[in-house]
């Protein structure tokens, strides 16, 4: 019984919805650290969140009360700073732009990278080994150092002050990391999968779409999550490549907002909250799917 049960825990999905949960809990070894460990984990979780909670709490107070009493409670709750930040801060526009650019960039980047990673993992050829090295070396390129040449490049294409230009730059910058992760995953898949499909007469593209991609879903999910956040939060490229305020993304809008409201702390906090909360909600909604697939795939 021990051996079969071990194989289950090594490869099985231990999500709470599993009917085996009761059996695992009662039968398996005690988790590391026991009660002390659990307490420590939760304490750190709370401590890690306090600054963010403070940010929210302070946004509900008036600026003068923030100066006179830094530790005061947010009562009575004031919404003035939110009204100010939203209307004068134009955050609705910025949010839409960020969404367009980030979703576009992540989609493009992941798509081309998945295709490339498949080829790199499955083709035996010196050219491809070199290509892979070229892609991976991109991980070591601090792209914001190339800001001027990128500006000139986009200028040549007529893509300055264009969200498309920004999307293309972001998509390109995500390629090394995505290929790095995806190639590893593709390599782990047994070659027999394709052999079986080829015998059935499928071509490369069909094999790719119908068999390989579903198998690397957790890796794709990882790549999406890890590219989405840095692209959403980048402020340097939109600053240089976008000129019209209505095209600004959230981080750029934030810096402009900070410039104007440098001492109006209450509105500042409200602006910070507005800039952060949508991403948190997005993340929570998305990771329900993503992390489930991730841990399931990883423990295989």
């Amino acid at each position, binding site marked *: 019984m021990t051996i079969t049960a071990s194989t289950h825990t090594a490869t099985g999905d231990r999500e709470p919805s599993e009917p085996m949960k009761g059996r695992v809990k009662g039968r398996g070894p005690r988790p590391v650290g026991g009660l002390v460990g659990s307490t420590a984990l939760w304490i750190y979780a709370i401590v890690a969140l306090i600054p963010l909670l403070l940010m929210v709490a302070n946004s509900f107070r008036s600026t003068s009360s923030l100066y006179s009493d830094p530790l005061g409670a947010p009562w009575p709750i004031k919404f003035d700073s939110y009204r100010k930040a939203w209307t004068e801060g134009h955050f609705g526009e910025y949010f839409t732009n960020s969404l367009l650019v980030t979703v576009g960039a992540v989609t493009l980047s992941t798509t081309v990278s998945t295709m490339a990673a498949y080829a790199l993992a499955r083709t035996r050829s010196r050219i491809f080994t070199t290509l892979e090295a070229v892609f991976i070396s991109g991980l070591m390129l601090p792209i914001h150092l190339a800001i001027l040449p990128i*500006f000139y490049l986009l200028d040549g294409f007529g893509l300055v002050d264009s969200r498309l230009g920004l999307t293309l730059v972001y998509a390109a910058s995500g390629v090394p990391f995505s290929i790095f992760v995806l190639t590893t995953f593709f390599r782990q898949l047994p070659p027999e999968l394709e052999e079986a499909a080829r015998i059935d007469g499928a071509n490369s593209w069909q094999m790719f779409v119908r068999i390989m991609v579903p198998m690397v879903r957790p890796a794709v999910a990882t790549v999406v999550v890890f590219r989405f956040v840095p692209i959403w939060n980048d402020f340097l490229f939109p*600053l240089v490549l976008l000129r019209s305020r209505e095209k600004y993304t959230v981080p750029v809008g934030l810096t402009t907002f900070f410039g104007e409201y440098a001492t109006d702390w209450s509105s500042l906090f409200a602006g910070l909250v507005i800039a952060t909360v949508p991403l948190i909600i997005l993340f929570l909604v998305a990771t329900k799917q993503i992390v489930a697939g991730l841990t399931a795939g990883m423990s295989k």
Partner: protein
Amino acid sequence: MNSNNRRHLTVLTLASAMVALAACSPSSSSSSSGGSGDSKNVTLSVWSWRTEDVAAYNAIFAVYTKAHPGTKVDFKAFKNTEYNLILTTGLAGSKGPDVAQVRSYGQLQPTIASKSLLPLDDVVDLSSWDANVVKSAKGKDDGKLYAVPLAQQTLQMFYNKDIFAKFALTPPTTWAEFMAVNTKLKAQGVTPMAVGAKDSWTLPMLHQVLAAPRFGAGAFEEAVTTGKTTFADPNWVASVDVVNKLKPYLPDSAVGVAYTDAQILFTSGKAAMFPGGSFELGFFQKQNPGLKMGVFEVPAPQGSPSMRPTTTGYADGAFGVSAKSDAQAASKDLVKWMSTKEFGQLVADKVKQLSAVPGVSYSDPLMKQMADNYAKNPTPYLLLVDFRYGTPSGTDLLGTGVQEMLLGKKDAAKISTDLQTGVSQWFKPTT
């Protein structure tokens, strides 16, 4: 095999289409920058770092449009800390400004060297202006004028009249009185001077406000720029030491206090004095309309070569015309208007800055006092005016140096020699 090929072709086509699309992406003004429209109707794009003054400038340019129908102005402001980066790309590529606010003195030189600005010697006549101010917009190498200076800033000590009244204090006229004011305030639990030493650029200004007479003010400028003396001069070192001696009267752990914190300390009444520039006035008034402020010149410290107090001044910001503008004539007209008294008066009234244009009258009593003080006892902001033409700049060196001094790591003599070593890398005295 057929469908295989087709799939591959689709992928390739999509990819190339993306790039092709990007390459011929429509840009309504394909290679122009800003100015669009036919010869009768022009929209000029004006860039600036004054995010705080957008409303004021829009009102000012509305006046221009009324007088010059057919010329509209689109005023855009970008955050100060990233403005240099944005301007560099703006002037180098397309879709940049027609008219741009540019930095002064040393910081203007790279822009000039990039050939991004048009010379304006034949467009405006600034012969009646303060020479130091005009210098701020000229090329160091060719001596040509590349921009019209916008504002004149003065440095002095702001003080809270209510707090002074509360402790029966009056603006000091001698150094002993100044020290007495500081001691009394500190004893009463009020921070005497609000200084945000975390932001090092405020520190050379502090040095000028507190101790310009101690190093010899204008006479010293003459000597150091012609090579007759250096920053190792004992008068200079003593002036830096004055700042050190006043450390107890700055906020606790001043190097941890940010510039914006210091502003708040003053406007909320927690600090009694604020050594700062005339550019603070509008902000202070908006932050706390009930604040009763005054300004005074800090008396000369003991041992100064001359006991006259001084008000430090320098030109701040100028407007130049982009060489890539396709509305050059209209742009030149605009900057020409910026050299008139009408524009200067509008700047004084709406933006609440001292205008670089001579002859402007100030309705705000404090602005008037600052302008008058400068007219009576002018001295240049030495490190900014003369020592920013290379790297490392004098202001950076002294700023970091004073931080180290306030932290107790170095003394006044050491940071003065550091300053001298730094600037001697590139500074050539004029004879």
